[in-house]
Each structure stands twice: as C-alpha cells, then as structure tokens.
C-alpha cells in the first residue's frame, strides 16, 4: 500500500530524514519508534505532503505522491491523525465527525449516518458527548474524536502521530485497543509512537528511527526481543540486572 524508497526531507538546510526506505502492506499496523528528534513526525509530515521531500519516492496505492500538494493527499485515502488531536473546539462532537466525512468526498446521507454510527460504536463515549462542544472533552476523548474524524473518510491508510502523548495509561490502553480493532476491521495503520513498548505490543512490524535513519526494522516481536531496542527504548535493561 505504502512504499517509500530513499526518502530525504528536512527543514531548510537541515536534513532530517536520511535515505529512509520502508513499507506498509494492507491490513497491517506498522509502528515507527524512536527518540525525540529522530525524525518520526517529520516522516509522517512528509508522507502527508506537509513537508516536501527533497529526494526519494513515496508510492501510495501504486502512485508516487511525493510531489502532490498536501490538500490532495487525504483525497487519495491517506489521512493523518495529528499529534495533539487538533479537533475543532467550538464545534460539537457530532459536527466534528460529520466534517471528517464531508471534507473529502460528497457521501450521501445514508452512508454518512452509517459511518457516524460506526464511530459511535467504536468510541461509545463520543456518542454520550455528541452534542457537547469538542473543546470541553478530556484529552483522551479528544484523541478518540480525532481518530473518529479521520475514519469518517474511510481512508486506506490511517497515520497516527503519537496518539498516547499526555494521556493516562488506562486511556492509552483504550486507544490502542481501538487501533487493534481497526486492523481487525481491515484498516491499515501507520503508528508513530514514543511509547515503543505499547506500540510494538500491538504492531505487526516496526521501524526504529535514529537521527533520521532506519537503524533496525523487522517484525514487532523481533524488535521487542532486540537488545539494542530494549536498552534504548524499552527501559528493560535495569530489570534484568
């Protein structure tokens, strides 16, 4: 579905992504993990077209989208759930969701309602709060709303940037359970996370980024068993000694 080869991107003269190659196949959860500043968010922003790639290819469903305007990319079926949710605070929960369904394609009312019901089923709390203004929701609820809003466009690929940031562990667990359910329903997820342990626990495969390069890639269980990954990102070393 997504096939990236030798991607380079950055800000001005600063080269952040160096020769990144990676792929996501349909129906997978792929995790991108790495420390702060490793280039995780830059990678998602480059796929989403918000940052221009200086070289390399981003193949999405068979077409190179690396030269496409950012506004065109969600229409191709590649949507991003940004870090820090960024829901429309002064609109109701329901309106936020409907906006997600409208923004990309003119879907008929019946489809839209069906999608809306599906989001309410995925996130029951949103149904309870559907008439509330989004700005009054808790952090976890806003994260769910941002996810629901993205899913309203029936994307081929959902990219999530740090969905666990600033959330209580119990809420993180709920959110990750929803991501697992999304995969079970046939969705494809590219997940950027600092919480490597939680991300790899649900992912099929993962890439570890360090200073803009993929230093290790492989099945998630292999990354969890890799000593370098454990030392750097899982904080397990101490327990063993």
């Amino acid at each position, binding site marked *: 579905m997504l096939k990236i080869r030798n991607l380079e991107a950055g800000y001005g003269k600063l080269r952040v992504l160096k*020769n990144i190659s990676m*792929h996501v196949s349909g129906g997978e959860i792929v995790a991108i993990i790495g420390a702060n500043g490793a280039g995780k968010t830059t990678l998602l922003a480059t796929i989403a077209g918000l940052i221009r790639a200086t070289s390399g290819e981003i193949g999405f469903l068979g077409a190179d989208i690396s030269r496409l305007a950012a506004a065109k990319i969600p229409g191709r079926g590649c949507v991003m759930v940004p870090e820090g949710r960024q829901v429309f605070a002064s609109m109701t929960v329901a309106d936020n969701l409907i906006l997600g369904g409208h923004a990309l394609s003119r879907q008929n009312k019946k489809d839209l309602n069906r999608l809306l019901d599906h989001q309410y089923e995925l996130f029951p709390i949103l149904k309870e709060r559907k008439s509330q203004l989004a700005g009054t929701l808790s952090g976890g609820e806003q994260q769910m709303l941002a996810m629901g809003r993205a899913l309203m466009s029936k994307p081929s690929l959902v990219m999530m940037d740090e969905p666990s940031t600033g959330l209580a562990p119990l809420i993180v667990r709920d959110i990750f359970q929803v991501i697992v359910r999304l995969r079970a329903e046939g969705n494809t997820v590219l997940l950027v996370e600092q919480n490597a342990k939680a991300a790899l626990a649900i992912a099929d495969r993962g890439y570890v980024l360090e200073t803009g390069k993929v230093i290790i890639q492989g099945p998630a269980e292999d990354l969890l*068993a890799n000593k370098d990954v454990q030392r750097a990102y899982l904080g397990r070393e101490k327990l063993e000694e």
Partner: protein
Amino acid sequence: MYWQQALECMPREDLEQLQLERLQATLYRLGTHVPFYRRKLREARVNYEAVTSLAALRGLPFTTKEDLHGNYPYGLFAVPLRDVVRIHSTSGGAGMTTVVGYTRNDIKNWSDLVARILRGAGVTAEDVVQIAYDYGIFTGGLGLHYGAERLGASVIPISSGNIKRQIRIMRDFKTTALVCTPSHALKIADVMMDMGLNSNELSLRYGVFGAEPWSEAMRREIGERLGIVATDNYGLAEIMGPGVAGECRECNGLHINEDHFLVEVLHPETLEPVAAGEIGELVITTLTKEAFPIIRYRTRDLARLLPEPCPCGRTLSRMSRILGRSDDMLIIRGVNVFPAQIEAVLADINGTGSPYLIIVDRENHEDKLTVMVEVTELLFSDQIRKQSALADTIQDRLVTDLGIQVQVKLVEEKTLETIDSKGQKVIDNRRL
C-alpha cells in the same frame, strides 16, 4: 507445503523493497558497530548511509575467509557478547578457524528458515525427524534440530556415530524423516544391507540432505536404496548454517531464502556477475543477522542460478546444487574449466558419474586437457566399436560444454586409483 507462505511466495517487487530496507539497515549497523567494516567501507569509498538500490551492492567490498580469520574470535560481531546466546565455529581447513555468534532473534530466524526447508522437503509436524548430523560446535546438528522443533516435528537428536544403533532406532521409533549428509545416508544403506534389513521395514519417507556436495546420481541411489524422496539443502556457518537455501518437492534446485540473504553469482576471477544461468561463485550478503552480519562473503562454492519460476509457487529464486569449489578452477588456454562441469557431463551421459581424472599437460607451449574416464560395469561393452563411440560422445559433449579441445580416454575400472591414490580429480603437469 510452505512454512511462511507470505514470505516464501511474496511478489518479487515487494521482496525487493524488503531486501533494500534490510540491506540499508544492515549496512548502517555494520558501519556503526563493526570497526573492521567501517574501515573497509571507507577504504572502498562507500558511504554506507547512501546506498539507494540493490544494484549498489556491486560497489561494496567483499568479505573473505581471511577477513574472518583475521578478526578471530569476536572482531566481526555487531553486538556485545552479552547479547549473544550461541556461538558456533568452523574449522575451515588450513587453520582458518572462524567464530560466528547468534542473538536470540538470530536463533529464531534461523529456526524459521530451517523449518521452511524441512517443510519444503515434505516434512510436517506429524513427522518423526532423526537428525544424524554431528551435534556440537558445527552448525548442522543444532541448526537442523531447532528448525525441526520449530516445525513441531518429533525430533530424535541421534547425532553421528554408531550406525547400527541409528538404524535400530530408526526402525523402532518409526522415523519418517532422515536428516544428515548424503554420504552418511549411503553409509546407512550399506550397514542396513549388512544387517539384512530392508528399507520396507522402516517408516522412512523423506531424506533432507546437505553439508557436502553430492550429485543427481547419488540422489537416485539414496532414493532407491532407502525408499525415500531425497532433497538437497545448502548453508554455511559463516552466513548462518543450514537454512540458506533448500529444495522443494519438485527437486529441481534450491530455493534461496532471499528475504534473509542476497546471493550474487560472480566469475571467480573477474568478480563480475556471470550471465544469467551461468556457473559462478556464490557471494552472499546477510540481511537480518544481528550478531554476525556479513557483506559479500566469498563462499568459494560454485553454482548457477535457475531463472525459470518453480511450479511449487515459491517466488524465491532457485540455485543449482553446489557444483564445486572456485578454488578448483583450472585455466586452460585462457578458458576457465571447473571439474564440476566435466562431472556434470559424465553424470548426464551414463547417469552414474564414473570416476574420472583430469590431466593437464603443456606441450609446445600449448595446454592439453585429457580426461580419463573409468569404464565401470554400466559403461562396459565388449564391442570395441561401442566403446569408441562412447568415448566420442563424451568428447563431443565436453568440447561443446567447455569450449576447448579435450582428449577423452577410457580406462579399465580401478585404474585411476593406481595413478593417483590421493583421490585428486586433477593432475596439473604444467608447473605454472
């Protein structure tokens, strides 16, 4: 018939993407973790962070047996020793001992790759697998053992030695798959005959053989005498051990586990790629090894790639059985000749691979190649005319296949032993 179907039957395009991702990560790890490679890559003026295609592999430096020996014991490990859970070693002849290490992930991958080969050969979780490789520091025993357990088979770690006991256990425990070297399988057949035991009294169905070169003739002989389907597999400790490549039930060449290894076939002198399907030296790069990654390892093993797709459905490309060692290469009138080529022609013509001896002379500054072939019972004919026709057939085929003039002489059985008791296949009288 597959163990990891999604990987074994992956579209080539997806496989190449995966290979590139893994090559880049491997080079990065070697460049940052292994001082030897950092130096070697710098000397070759290769920026290990800037390799953007599989074709760029050709610009990377080679790793030789001497390099491994020079870094004895742990110099090429890419992880600290505390991350290593297993250490194997190869004798490698001429004092060239090398040491290889495995992390927990390496062992897991290794087990999966060996399980692929066993599954491809027909073995399933229902089978009783008897492993008659030497268990120890050599990779054969434990490599196959872990793979067979991973597959879920019932494994008998019989190891080598005491063949009579092996045969009794094979009969009593109802062993269905025998895993060993092909020569050991023949030895078992011999001892069974001595014991008056028929293969019908065994439950044996599969033979998974490797760790030494063998031939189609041996395959037929083992198959007939033990009543099994014999498949070939290939591996070497420097790369991982068994599990690099293995035959499926089509018995038409070994599928290379290309998602873990990049295999090049190069001319052993020019080190340029040979034409598609030509014989050359296997040069292997690992893609997933954590403890002991290696780039462009010169195996000295000769084989050819088989470009046609395999009916089994695997997209992993195939290589021929090992046809010889590049160390054996002769240069005759500027043409490279491998004893393996001559062996292949003989096996083709009479189906058994008669004993032969290659003699190279230099007369009047010109190289002369003579091939002496023993006339065994199978070839024997009391009609001189038939004999000389046979010599002509062999000669014609050799001239065509080798591209140089060859003299073929038929000699009586056991003659060659008296000429050369050391069992050498080549006598080079040129004093080069």
